[in-house]
């Protein structure tokens, strides 16, 4: 198997000739048959277990999603009720609270959740100005 291709092979040259690096890449990227994993073949009971696990996972995710949606719905309803109460109480406050003035932008110093806490911990020494 000559690397580079194109030209006709010289008679005396052996098959392994050419750039060694390319030859190695070709060899290792086409894995030998014995190293190539076989496709998953499940027996009846194993397939049943796999199916059960899959269904349980779907159910778990569904419950999680539903409870999250319900929670958002409750929070949304609280906001709406508060706004209606505010409108009944004071028209000026209601108008101001619905306006998007002076809201500002999302702060960049909010931490993104990580798997383990940082070494420095909470910054208690922060002072204004």
């Amino acid at each position: 198997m000559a690397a580079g291709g194109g030209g006709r092979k010289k008679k005396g040259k052996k098959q392994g000739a050419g750039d060694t690096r390319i030859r190695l890449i070709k060899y290792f990227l086409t894995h030998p048959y014995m190293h190539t994993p076989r496709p998953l073949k499940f027996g009846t009971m194993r397939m049943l277990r796999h199916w059960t696990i899959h269904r349980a996972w779907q159910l778990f995710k569904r419950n999680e999603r539903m409870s999250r949606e319900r929670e958002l719905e409750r929070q949304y309803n609280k906001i709406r009720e508060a706004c209606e109460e505010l409108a009944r109480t004071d028209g000026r406050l209601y108008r101001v609270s619905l306006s998007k003035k002076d809201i500002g932008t999302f702060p960049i110093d909010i931490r993104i959740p990580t798997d383990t806490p940082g070494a420095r911990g909470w910054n208690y020494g922060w002072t204004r100005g």
Partner: protein
Amino acid sequence: MSVTARTTRSACGLLRSAAAPRPLPRAFFSTAVNIPIESLQTEPVRIPTPETRPGLPKSSNYIIESAAVVSRPPYLTPELHPFEESYYFYQQRLHQRLALPFTRYFYFKKDSTADLLWKKKQRPLRKAKAYTGFGPEGWKDELLIGDNAQHEEDFGYERLVETTVTKEDAVVEEGAEQEAKIVEKPLPRTTKADEENDLKSLDRAGSRTLYLLVKQNGRWQFPTSRLEGKENLRHTAMRTLEESCGMNMNTWFVGNVPIGHQVINFSKPKEGMAGAKTFFMKARIMAGQADLTGNELGVTDFVWVTKDELKDTTVRGYWESVRHMLATR
């Protein structure tokens, strides 16, 4: 899409908008939180005022208050449910069965330093007969009863340091101390404040939201005060926080819209007032700590609590009016 389908749908929309107001579709709640209130209604909102409905008390008869709901967002990812942990492990094993093996001599030249190091690092795996996904034992990918391999307290740190060769390792060979410096060990998820249950600490309960409660007028509540002059709700909440807990807190008030409210009707009118209406304004804390010295609102104590602890700390009526506006996590 066919023309008929489109026409039918638009006709349905017309019919619906003509009918009585219907409950909002569920889709709103999962995505559109920022949509202003009016646009969500099918009909224009007609707000009852004292003029249109005489039964309602006049606005001046109620004390209007604003409360700052300051929360520290979780800084840790949520705890994995045992089922989630097992499921991920199961998927990982299946993936191992389907992946190509590591081609050692493609990455390491034979008998080079890196190659020898890799060989050395693989030894504990071979000794422990760790699962590889290959060979005659490859089909045994499921855990047996009592095998708890899916749960690793240190996020697999020890295992990875023992068995994985990194670029830095290959360069720095001598000395375990140096290696330990390169791959830093992650800190445990429970901190000192968790063990001591220090309610004033912000390093506690990392995977939960913490809410700031103060002891005001002898009971636990969010920092509250009356509106003054031409202030709006958010300005009052900001002022309240500053007057009660000091100014050394880096906070961000999420918007002008209140996230909840509480109405208290007095049994007897006090100073000509029929009751008090409190509106809660949401805020996030990013740095700093509450400081009660010299506060002007008569606050005697403060705590940072999760939603569950908030239930036990506050009185029942207060809890009932705030519980649905707070996030569970």
